């Protein structure tokens, strides 16, 4: 009998020890998560505080920079939208993005279907080539592309970006779409073709609806790439009215030595938050798309 009691007591002791260890590791996980989040988002937090500060508060090196020593103000956000070219940059980024995404899908969807489904001997190497094209950086091409843009008479025009950005988005988005297509069973369109649809008919009626979540992910991805691009936009375009957000904010909102710090930081936050929000929502889908794209289907 005594033995049983000790084992029960032992079991209790063990349980407590495990519970304690468990609590310990829980606290560790939370601490690590909060620390990582702070390190990542710290500069944005700092931007947010800055954006809402009065000049007198901001430009006093003895003030605690992390708190509002004087009341917060929205003046600089209003200034950003009313007295700077920021709305123009925003509008340019938006319509360039929409056009680039459209071109990307028009070119990328058929290409992805061809490489993922219409099994040709060259499909595999082509897919890899596509990936390498994505790795060719703008820094290697901007000089010759600038000459081409000049030759086409598109210099200093936002249209130059509509023409050139798909060279970045088509390869990477086709790669993503190949991944999503591999996630759709072949039987579905084969069944549709047995039922009398042509290859194209089966594609349009059965595959496209199933691919829709993937297409949405590609739209988000292509738009983000477009909004982030910097070198081409800087090399092709100099007039303020034709600039996009990524070049307009750092070049136009800094006039010589005069920095509109609060407005600069406000524009940063206004752009950063929505993009990160949408990206977080689609993260799982991006990961599965890229992973599937690398798998032999």
């Amino acid at each position, binding site marked *: 009998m005594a033995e049983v009691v000790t084992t029960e007591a032992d079991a209790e002791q063990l349980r407590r020890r495990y519970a304690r260890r468990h609590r310990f590791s829980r606290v560790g996980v939370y601490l690590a998560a909060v620390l990582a*989040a702070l390190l990542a988002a710290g500069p*944005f937090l700092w931007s947010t505080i800055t954006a809402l500060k009065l000049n007198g508060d901001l430009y006093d090196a003895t003030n605690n920079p992390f708190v509002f020593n004087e009341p917060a103000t929205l003046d600089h956000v209003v200034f950003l939208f009313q007295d700077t070219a920021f709305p123009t940059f925003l509008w340019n980024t938006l319509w360039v993005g929409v056009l680039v995404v459209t071109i990307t899908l028009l070119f990328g969807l058929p*290409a992805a279907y061809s490489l993922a489904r219409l099994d040709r001997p060259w499909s595999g190497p082509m897919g890899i080539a596509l990936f390498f094209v994505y790795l060719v950086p703008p820094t290697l091409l901007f000089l010759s592309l600038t000459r081409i843009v000049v030759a086409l008479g598109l210099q200093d025009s936002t249209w130059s970006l509509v023409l050139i950005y798909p060279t970045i988005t088509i390869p990477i988005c086709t790669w993503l779409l190949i991944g999503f297509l591999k996630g759709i069973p072949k039987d579905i369109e084969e069944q549709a073709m047995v*039922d*009398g649809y042509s290859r194209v008919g089966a594609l349009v009626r059965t595959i496209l609806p199933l691919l829709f979540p993937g297409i949405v992910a590609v739209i988000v991805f292509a738009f983000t790439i477009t909004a*982030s691009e910097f070198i081409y936009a800087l090399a092709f375009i100099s007039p303020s009215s034709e600039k996009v957000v*990524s070049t307009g904010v750092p070049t136009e909102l800094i006039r010589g030595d005069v920095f509109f710090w609060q407005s600069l930081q406000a524009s940063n936050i206004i*752009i950063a938050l929505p993009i990160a929000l949408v990206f977080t929502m689609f*993260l799982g889908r991006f990961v599965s798309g890229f992973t599937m794209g690398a798998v032999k289907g």
Partner: protein
Amino acid sequence: MEQATAVQPARPATGAPPRRRLADRDGLLAWLFLLPSFVYVIALVGVPFVLAIGFAFSDVTAGDPSFDWAGLDAFRRAFDDPVFWQSLRNTLVITVISMVLIVLLGKILANILLADFRGKWIVRFLILLPWTTPVALSTVSWLWLLDSIFSPIDWVLRQLGLLEANMYWLGRPTLAMVSVIAVHVWRLVPLAAVIVLAGLIAIPKDIDEAARVDGAGFWRRMFEVTIPLTLPVIAVAALFGAIFTFTDMAVVYVLTRGGPTNSTQVLASWAFARGIEGGDVAQGAAIAIFLFPLLLAAAILILQAVRRMQVM
């Protein structure tokens, strides 16, 4: 025969037979579908690529864009300028240090993201911010964070009594390099973490559980099971980190403009300074060409790593 007639009625009655011919020929369709993208990429990536190499051996300037063969003149001009060698060295230093830090921190971050905890969504959102925000804009945040007078980092150091005046982060060569590396690491760690996370999730759960049943502790499982299994993925994360670091010029351009006195100049920013701002297209092209060997090596290594993943 009976089977054939049984299939017939299932076809849409309106389906015209001639239309089926083109729309069903897979071999032709495969080409037709691929052709537009193929032409686009050849015209605006392939041609410019060849052109970029051609420019390096020419005398093209922004003012006189006519192409004349000039042999190695542009390279000679580039090599004679000590800033070129400085840029090459800086590019290598920044890339190697960033790559090591990106992989280390990316692996740690991936493990955090793998753990189960409340509020994971918001943490993930905050962690992704540095990567999803346009580089030029997030660097503006850092520009203000590292301001010569109002840097909050300096303020904290002053409060702690570790600093009398200011650090002048971007005004001193070594600190400016540290700042550039810090921004690169900060913005690319989330990408590395996501790549490693994808690899961690792909490890079959039973392998880890088997090791656990056999009595392997956390560190043992980490070093003898998880890391060997995810090594190819970690390699991919490292190479992506490297590529995005050494081909980027936005961070240097916004943060330091290559300064103070070219001490943070990298190949990409120097090529831009010569080729676009200086108008010497040929020299800019000659400088940019030096990115290519690095790029090729990274691309081949990525391919090998991906092949190894497929073998497993």
